[in-house]
């Protein structure tokens, strides 16, 4: 049990709820009152109300009239924010890192191109890792293909609601994923060759789009990618779908900016370990950066200059910054989607303003990926993704006391909590005796 002291519904109904596999309460009119509310889209409001109806936010502010039928939740002394957005995860695509059959995050592709890979369509919405993420206030995630292909596939933004993948998707695709980190993964021998392959793909996509009929009649030359991958790339070359380029070395980031400018492609830098070294150029190009604040190890020759002040320096230059990732190393990524708040807290410790840090895990990712009309802020008309915190959401001692996604409060115990309950006393509590 997460809140032994607070009388939540969870305690009374946990077992039953789990048994029937639901775990969320039906949508209704809910008034969260008395809290310090951070709408993110506007200044914080003391002693404010957040009014939710039918899964949407209806009103936010002080002095709001509360309908008689509303379920009132007294949040005096609490902090209320939009649900957090982790904009780079394999949640639902990778369950047990080293068990291949639980992984659907890496496409095979052809010739190191998997542009047509729609990762979210293979999402396991029964992943046991979704509830723990939500439990700590993460209500939306970008589901991003992994792999080190030249093009790894397409990402989607989803809400962590109960349901099938089709119920969860907010927008898909939100971006195409490319990388400039691993030459081997891209099937090239050198950085310059990787750029050539990207340009070739862009050029061939344009040629293909200009005359698809000729392609169908087999009257064109060979293209750099197969038909479905070319089709998937069309919105990228037309500037409608951003291309996330995972790049760390400052020179690679510069090359990505050039590629975007020359081809009228919307670039987003992912990772961006050394982005601070050309922060002004990135700002001038209006290119957002997805990065973190817990890495400072010169972990490879492509990221010698990564520093924890990266986000702060980028923001200072005017770059749109999205906080992603966790401080750990590798496979625990999906287990710790929740640690996005630790990452944001560290960003503050290393110079980012607190307000910018909150924005970097709420509204900014929503804006960068074109879903700010749905998530990322507490405004009328937005999805009711709302978290009531016991205090500063970035502090470890703070608890996400209540979490709403699409207006539904999620209260069931997750797998980790069930294990904790079972082994709180030893030998464990089980229906059968255990020694």
């Amino acid at each position, binding site marked *: 049990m997460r*809140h*032994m002291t607070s009388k939540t519904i969870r305690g009374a109904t946990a077992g039953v709820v789990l048994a029937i596999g639901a775990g969320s309460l039906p949508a209704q009119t809910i008034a969260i009152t008395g809290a310090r509310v951070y709408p993110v889209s506007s200044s914080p409001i003391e002693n404010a109300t957040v009014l939710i109806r039918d899964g949407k936010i209806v009103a936010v502010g002080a002095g709001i009239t509360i309908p008689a039928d509303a379920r009132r939740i007294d949040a005096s002394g609490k902090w209320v924010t939009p649900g957090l957005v982790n904009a780079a995860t394999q949640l639902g695509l990778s369950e047990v890192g080293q068990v291949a059959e639980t992984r659907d995050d890496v496409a095979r592709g052809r010739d190191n191109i998997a542009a047509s890979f729609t990762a979210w369509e293979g999402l396991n919405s029964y992943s046991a890792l979704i509830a723990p993420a939500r439990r700590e206030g993460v209500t939306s995630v970008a589901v991003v293909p*992994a792999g080190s292909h030249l093009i790894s596939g397409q990402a989607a933004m989803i809400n962590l609601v109960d349901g099938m993948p089709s119920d969860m998707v907010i927008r898909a695709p939100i971006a195409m994923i490319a990388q400039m*980190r691993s030459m081997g993964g891209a099937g090239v021998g050198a950085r310059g060759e990787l750029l050539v392959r990207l340009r070739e793909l862009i050029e061939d996509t344009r040629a293909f789009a200009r005359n698809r009929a000729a392609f169908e009649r087999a009257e064109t030359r060979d293209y750099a990618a197969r038909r479905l991958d070319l089709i998937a790339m069309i919105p990228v070359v037309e500037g409608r779908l951003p291309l996330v380029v995972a790049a760390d070395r400052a020179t690679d980031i510069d090359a990505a900016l050039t590629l975007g400018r020359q081809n009228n492609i919307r670039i987003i830098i992912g990772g961006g370990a050394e982005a601070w070294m050309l922060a002004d150029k990135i700002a001038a190009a209006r290119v957002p950066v997805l990065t973190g604040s817990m*890495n400072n190890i010169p*972990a490879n020759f492509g990221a010698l200059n990564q520093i924890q002040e990266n986000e702060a320096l980028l923001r200072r230059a005017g770059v749109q910054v999205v906080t992603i990732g966790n401080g750990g190393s590798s*496979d625990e990524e999906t287990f*710790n989607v929740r640690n996005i708040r630790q990452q944001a807290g560290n960003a503050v410790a290393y110079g980012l303003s607190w307000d910018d840090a909150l924005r970097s895990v709420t509204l900014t990712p929503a804006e960068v990926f074109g879903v700010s009309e749905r998530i990322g802020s507490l405004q009328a008309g937005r999805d009711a993704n709302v978290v009531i915190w016991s205090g500063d959401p970035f502090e470890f001692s703070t608890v996400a006391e209540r979490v709403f996604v699409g207006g539904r409060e999620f209260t069931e115990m997750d797998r*980790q909590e069930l294990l904790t309950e079972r082994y709180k006393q030893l030998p464990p509590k089980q229906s059968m005796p255990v020694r």
Partner: protein
Amino acid sequence: MGAGGLSYPAFRNGSEPRRNPIAMKSHFAPVVVLAALCACAPARTKQGAQVSPRDSVAPAMLGAVSTPNADPFPSTYVPFPSAPVVIRNVNLITAAGPTIRNGMISIADGKIVAVGATVEVPAGATVIDGNGKYVTPGLIDTHSHIGVYAAPGGQALSDGNEATNPVTAHVWAEHSVWPQDPQFPRDLQGGVTTMQVLPGSANLIGGRSVVLKSVPSRTVQGMKFPGAKYGLKMACGENPKRVYASRGPSTRMGNVAGYRAAWIQAEAYRRRWDKWNQDRKGDPPTRDLGQETLAEVLRGNILVHNHCYRADEMAQMIDIAKEFGYRIRAFHHGVEAYKVADILARDSIGGSLWADWGSFKMEALDGIKANIALVEKAGANAVVHSDDASGSQRLNQEAAKAMAAGNSAGIPVSEDVAIKWITLNAAWQLGLEDRIGSLEAGKNADIVLWSANPFSVYARPEKVWVDGAMLYDRTDPRQQWRTDFELGYVRTPAGFNR
């Protein structure tokens, strides 16, 4: 390092393959099985002269190691120059009792002189106003691979797993340590003053660990904690059976047979040498580096650090230890330690555990954030370890998460308890609890001055002292150790103090 077809999350700052050697949790390389073990070098004394076995029996003072040539790579560490320092107006989380609010600490000659509400200020001491900030003991990481998986990574610096045989008791981690690994100064900046560097977990028995101080040195000998006991790395479960799948062990039962076979040999070796040491008759038995290490475990002179995830496997390792008469000092990773916390407490076995890692492989599936709190509650020695050069820099944050998880689960944990998870309890697991791990008079002056309560996400170390010498000062770039590697390769942004 190859990733077996699986690859990495799409964006991660600076790390490339999923099995990034710089930061990975199951430290083993894809294996090319090699044929033979190394040839053993002749016995040498500290001076390097070849000696007869009769002369080579070590005096008891040499780390209580009784084999021939007990200390062939002796520590050359000496504390850096220091002057007496008093920090006043500071909150002291001591790991030796309740937090002292607005107190004072005095250090001199490398030792803690006094800790309390008020302490005497020696003549000539530098007095630092703590301004209501926090002081803790220097943090201790019981599980590091810094130096043996050095940055910037790659095969050239991947020296943590001698994955050529399931039992490599003959290798010593210190022989892989690169003192210029830029991860060392970063650990110091995170407040870590002592770390155990272990071989990886590819092997059933991976070799000797070494306890290092986070100090600049040209040589690993210059970093070695004087007098610290060696550890022996053992590993359960998935890693060895996967690494040796083609030649065996390829199953957990194969793993257990492998441990037992090794201990049977070691026991015979120990008897032969103990007898010869007593009688001194005839030729001494032939030395065997691996058996020497294992025999020292059986004699109680080397501490066993056992990588083991699952509760049932820990229980089996405990039985193996009993069968052969050695003790397990700590289980490392122990993702399911909470399921057998009572057994760990009963047998005085520690747990070096993650705050929140799980699910990255089957044996890690049942990871819970309350693990450490539950082990603590059962009365066992609980430690937050890193196994990761990034996490090692934030042991305070890891401890804060584990403490919060306990509190959320209805297992109250105070800061005064949680601080021990990264200090005194860790010192015990390394056998150094009399020298480091708490703010007490007479202990080594390894201390950290924090900008705020160290359990806050916003806290950062401002100053770090090792044996009384300030080796890190956030506000003074001249007091920030930069390794040889970093010169001309790693930049720092102007105007930022790191």
